């Protein structure tokens, strides 16, 4: 294992650890400074636990000003900083390095303002995704992007990874729902981008920040668009005797110009795992399942569903089951959203994340199972099919080092396949350390150099999330 390299820690920084810690005590509240080995260990990894590095120290500021003071100090003294939200990154985006300070936003979790007239909410970056919806739900509003990890992941992490979710097919991903941010740059300056409305004057710098994986600055506050909940919503389960049929049905629905709120895909392995956990009534006698959700008035839903059902049947769907109650709907989504975690009951997994054109779904799924078989492993597929964002879960035994490297090799092959069919290395989980070295499959040197120049314009000394996103041998100073 340990396919992914880390740079050698800067010895000079390690030697200065005591004095750095001493200086940090003056910049943050004592409860927000973590230095003992045992306590730092809790921060040595995120949801990509195959990789771990102990940080130099952890700071958990409570205000933008504290964030600014810490960043300014790190900038002036050349200390690296790794931003962290809830640490649910599947690409190792929040994994520290030994010469870096982790700056966690978990204590910054206040809701600052809610405005129903102008339909926005302003929150600190450490607020979890689901609690945004929880705040506005009683007034019939919600926040669109719904990553499966929404219970735990933070808005700051969502912005950094441009996270999406099941319902993003209709409502768009983070970038389509973010109105503004307050952000601290590495030199400590505090800037505001965007505002309380959808478009802002000048260069779309906000667009640049979304998906920048903590390399341009640290977001401390965000203004988000909130939407009025639909009159009604109804998920429907479509079971297929073959994966190809299900894949084709997705392509046909999209090609017909129908945009349901969500189209989620599960193969047999995933169905069994999720059903055992959520008891949602998923059909167990099929090879693939689509969860399609429609919204609107009853008449609207009936009409859209009739069209989708016809397409599904034409592609061989054998089961069609509508949710009949709020409890059933909740169970259907709970099963889907817990899919990755529930997989932990059967095996360790590497969760891949790539995007392919929906027309290629059937082909890609068939190829994935060949790839994984070639490496002697198993796979479970559960993903956002509507926008072609696949998540093969490569199942393996993490305590067997040979399986670890096979799983990683299979993962690389799958991502290369995504690029080959005209898709993309990442869907929504970001590049992190996981896909850093594959960036060359997607981009040539000129592309990379251009991106690196933008990055260096914000952080010339490469102090923010240094080892992430760009291949280690590809660096330039601003």
């Amino acid at each position, binding site marked *: 294992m340990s396919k992914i390299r880390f740079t050698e820690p800067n010895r000079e920084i390690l030697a200065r650890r005591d004095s750095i810690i001493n200086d940090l005590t003056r910049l943050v509240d004592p*409860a927000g400074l*973590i230095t*003992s080995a*045992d*306590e730092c*260990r*809790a*921060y040595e*990894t*995120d*949801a990509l*636990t*195959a990789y771990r590095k102990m940080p130099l120290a952890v700071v*958990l500021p409570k205000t933008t000003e504290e964030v600014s003071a810490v960043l300014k100090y790190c900038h002036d003294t050349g200390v690296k900083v790794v931003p962290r939200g*809830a*640490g*649910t990154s599947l690409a190792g985006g929040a994994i520290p390095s030994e010469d870096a300070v982790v700056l*966690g936003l*978990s*204590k910054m*979790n206040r809701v600052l303002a809610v405005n129903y007239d102008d339909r926005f909410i302003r929150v600190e970056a*450490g607020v*979890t995704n*689901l609690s945004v919806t929880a705040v506005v739900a009683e007034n019939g509003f919600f926040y669109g992007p719904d990553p499966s*990890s929404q*219970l*735990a*992941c933070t808005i700051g992490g969502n912005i950094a990874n441009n996270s999406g979710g099941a319902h993003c097919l209709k409502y768009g991903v983070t970038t389509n729902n973010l109105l503004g941010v307050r952000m601290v740059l590495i030199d400590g300056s505090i800037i505001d981008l965007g505002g309380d409305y959808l478009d802002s004057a000048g260069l779309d710098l906000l667009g640049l920040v979304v998906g920048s994986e903590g390399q341009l600055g640290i977001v401390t506050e965000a203004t988000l668009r909130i939407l009025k909940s639909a009159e009604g919503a109804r998920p429907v389960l479509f079971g297929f005797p073959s994966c190809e049929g299900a894949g084709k049905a997705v392509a046909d629905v999209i090609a017909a110009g129908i945009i349901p709120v969500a189209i989620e895909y599960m193969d047999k392995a995933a169905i069994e795992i999720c059903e055992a*956990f959520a008891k949602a009534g998923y059909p167990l006698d099929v090879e693939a399942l689509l969860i399609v959700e429609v919204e609107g008035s009853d008449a609207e839903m009936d009409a859209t569903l009739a069209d989708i059902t016809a397409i599904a049947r034409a592609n061989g769907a054998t089961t069609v089951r509508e949710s009949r109650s709020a409890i059933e709907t909740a169970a259907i989504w709970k099963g889907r959203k*817990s*899919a*990755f*975690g*529930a*997989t*932990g*009951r059967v095996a*360790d*997994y590497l969760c891949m994340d790539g995007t392919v054109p929906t027309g290629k779904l059937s082909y890609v799924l068939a190829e994935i199972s060949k790839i994984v078989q070639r490496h002697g492993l198993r796979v479970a597929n559960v993903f956002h099919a509507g926008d072609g964002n696949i998540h093969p879960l490569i199942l393996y035994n*993490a*305590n067997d080092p040979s399986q670890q490297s096979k799983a990683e090799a299979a993962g690389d092959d799958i991502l290369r396949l995504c690029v080959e069919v005209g898709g993309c290395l990442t869907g929504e989980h970001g590049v992190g350390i996981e896909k850093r070295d594959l960036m060359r499959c997607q981009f040539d040197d000129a592309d990379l150099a251009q991106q690196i120049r933008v990055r260096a314009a914000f952080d010339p000394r490469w102090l923010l999330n240094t080892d992430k996103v760009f291949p280690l041998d590809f660096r330039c100073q601003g």
Partner: protein
Amino acid sequence: MQTNFSLTALADAHVSESEKILRACVHCGFCTATCPTYLLLGDEADSPRGRIYLIKDMLEEEKPATPQVVEHIDRCLTCLSCMTTCPSGVHYMHLVDHARAHIARTYTRPLPDRLLRGMLAKVLPFPGRLRLALRVATVSRPIRKWLANLPGGTQLAAMIELSSSFKRRRPTRRLPGATVDRPRGRVALLSGCAQQVLGQNINEAAIRLLTRHGIEVVQPIDEGCCGALVQHLGYESRALDAARHNVDVWTREIENGGLDAIVVTTSGCGTVIKDYGFLLRNDNAYAQKAVRISALARDITEFLHELPLQDGVRTTGQVVAYHSACSMQHGQQVRDQPKSLLRRMGFVVREVPEGHICCGSAGTYNVLQPEIANRLRARKVTNIEKVKPQIIASGNLGCITQIGAGTGIPVVHTVELVDWAMGGPLPDVLGRRLG
């Protein structure tokens, strides 16, 4: 998650059990979001995932517990909200029990902490001693502020503070069992140690309810503490002794007269009795008997719910906020039965916002960690008051006391309300308001 245990370490039954638990955790972080201490403190090391990770390292490296690890494990309420949330089925309770036993073996606590824990373990499980201690607490009330300045004194002061909310309950003797003509069933009702002293009225109501339905109730005279208190304090062997003792007592009852259930009115105890089968799994003489006992354990609301229930005889209709104890909703996964019983008796039951979060009682937690416990109580009371209830009902004495100390709204046990609706006496605390 990958683990790294030596083969010799895995030869230990506890370690190999914990290793299986650790392997199931995928470090997804979902549980952090529903953990009360993470919500308040925002530090990964005070979250379930962080604690699991610290425990993993401690056990893998076979190293003595450090003060830092102890601090974060001590802050855990054992509310088990994390277990309800975890999609991967990680058995946090068994893991943290193991960690606490490891701490007890390898770490010497500062003297005041040791004395306090020792005292709690020596007093609370014994009704006679508890009665005495409460008297001492009442006399010490005037000096609690002064005590708070001594080492370990904040905890002492918290204990005295809390004891004042016990006052209105009348201490009585252990209840005798109750026989009925031609019984349709026979159950053992757990007396509960603290409950005998502080909440006798609860089991009185339970007995009336059960006998009204033709259930004979026995209360074996030599039954002891269920072991939950000492278990959570890390006194593993004492907890096992308590479990063995009760397994013997109830097995005797099963053999002489038979038992349809072991009925529990304190959900904290219920969680542990339902776990006896696991706790004694490595004890050949007890393993099977313990599994049988655990299988018979029922919360009173679970048991009543399975009976053909009589109708209420009083006009009710009061607005009741139902507070589900953590040991009820997370420990035993008993969720709907209590609410459905109350609704059947005509009460208007309201769900409490953020109902999955602990009130801070958590066994001895409100004594050992008063600061976090008080913050959680304030948060709980605010949420309860949002639904504007006339009465608060709960199925666990600890919560009743904890919440009662923070609000003017009367707090009663669920069975007291059900019993009243069926013709029993009005619970004391309601007398002044509804009578």
